[in-house]
């Protein structure tokens, strides 16, 4: 089970949280092509290694934040607030 350190509430167990998919996804301009728009809508970052992702503390403070997590070991490498640039981390793949 993941133990996720919510930046507002501290360390809590996985069932309190909801996964929110990849972080740092930027919506392309409306002038973008169908392919670019489809890529924005459907393509997913899916690395074997460090993944930057959003989590919601649904059964807690109700706030969103970002997590950098290793998708093989599930180790949480960094937790940072929405709007903050992603930290540079070495991939432990």
């Amino acid at each position, binding site marked *: *089970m*993941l133990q996720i350190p919510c930046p507002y509430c501290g360390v809590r*167990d*996985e*069932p309190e949280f909801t*996964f929110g*998919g990849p972080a740092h996804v930027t919506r392309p301009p409306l002038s973008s092509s*169908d*392919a670019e*728009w*489809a*890529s924005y*809508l*459907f*393509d*997913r970052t*899916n*690395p*074997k290694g460090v*993944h930057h*992702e959003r989590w919601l503390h649904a059964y807690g403070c109700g706030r969103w934040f970002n997590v950098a*997590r290793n*998708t*093989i*070991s*599930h180790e949480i490498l960094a937790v940072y607030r929405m709007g903050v640039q992603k930290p540079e981390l070495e991939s432990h793949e």
Partner: protein
Amino acid sequence: MIVIGGGGHGLATAYYLAKKHHVRDVAVLERGWIGGGNSGRNTQVTRSNYFYPVSSSFYDHSLTLYEGLSRELNFNVMLSQRGLVSLAHSEHELEIMRRWANAIRMNGVDSEMLTPAQIKKLAPRINLRSRYPVVGGFIQPRAGISRHDAVVWGFARGASAHGADIIQGCEVLGFDITGNRVRGVRTSRGAIAADRVVMSVAGHSSVLAGMAGFSLPITTMALQAMVTEPLKPLLDVVMISATIHAYVSQSDRGEIVIGGGADVYNSYAQRGALPTMRSTLAAVLQLFPSFSRLRLMRQWAGMVDVTPDTTPIMGLTPVEGLYINCGWGTGGYKAIPAGGETMAYTVIHNRPHPLIERFGMERFARGALIDEGAAAGVAH
């Protein structure tokens, strides 16, 4: 030709390439051992109860191939068409299930609505008045289970007998691509030249696509399953509830096989976490309270490749000579024979087999999604 991935789909692709299309120079490359990935980590369920005609025609063809597979491979895959019952837990769910069951009939596939009394007769141990009462359901009588290892071994032996090479312990590290055309692959055991390559690697599809220079709308997650200690026969249907996220059947060895929803976050770990296991078991015990005394013997997880519309991605890729078969998510086992047959055709003709024309990766840009979220059974 090279097929990457020695699971059911990859081996079936090699089998049909060698047997039907008489290709003599096909190699299956497997990083670990054959059948060690999702082909050995599923719950062996075979069914074709899909909503849209385009899905239904593919999956029912696959079920039809399963019906003749022991004879085709001369290897007993122990197909048991015991029927699969989907449960409804509210009047609203029952209404939409009636529409679903009717759509399946309109697709020419067997399905029948069931009353609670009929469900009780099929599975006497079920508790109809649980936290989520059972108000009805439907059955696909031709659905059932088979022996997953036998499917892998049968296709492997058949492919080998028809001249395919199966190379285990051989990890693909990259592609040789010049002028947007695949020329071969680089592996942990050296380079292999090939002008046609099929990717059939489930949870690792995004990693391999990245090596070839394109991205996929896929998220890799862990999907757990577990078995209890063996019992005398007591459940001879497969039972599934989408509302409480659980499905259950009894294997030929007597074990109660239990599956549920995926652990819903990216994972390449091949193991599931306790919260999902607990909620799955809680759901099963609501339906079958007498199972509470059973001991679990094994629990495991596969890495499933989930697409936004829970429909697979099959066909050509942006790289010429490179073909893809992935996106099966939580339901690839039932599709093994048809997946292999249609991919073999696609590689030989360099165009998608008619049954998989709509499954191409270009459907996302066109907005032509095939949303089979309900037919996928449980949430992910």
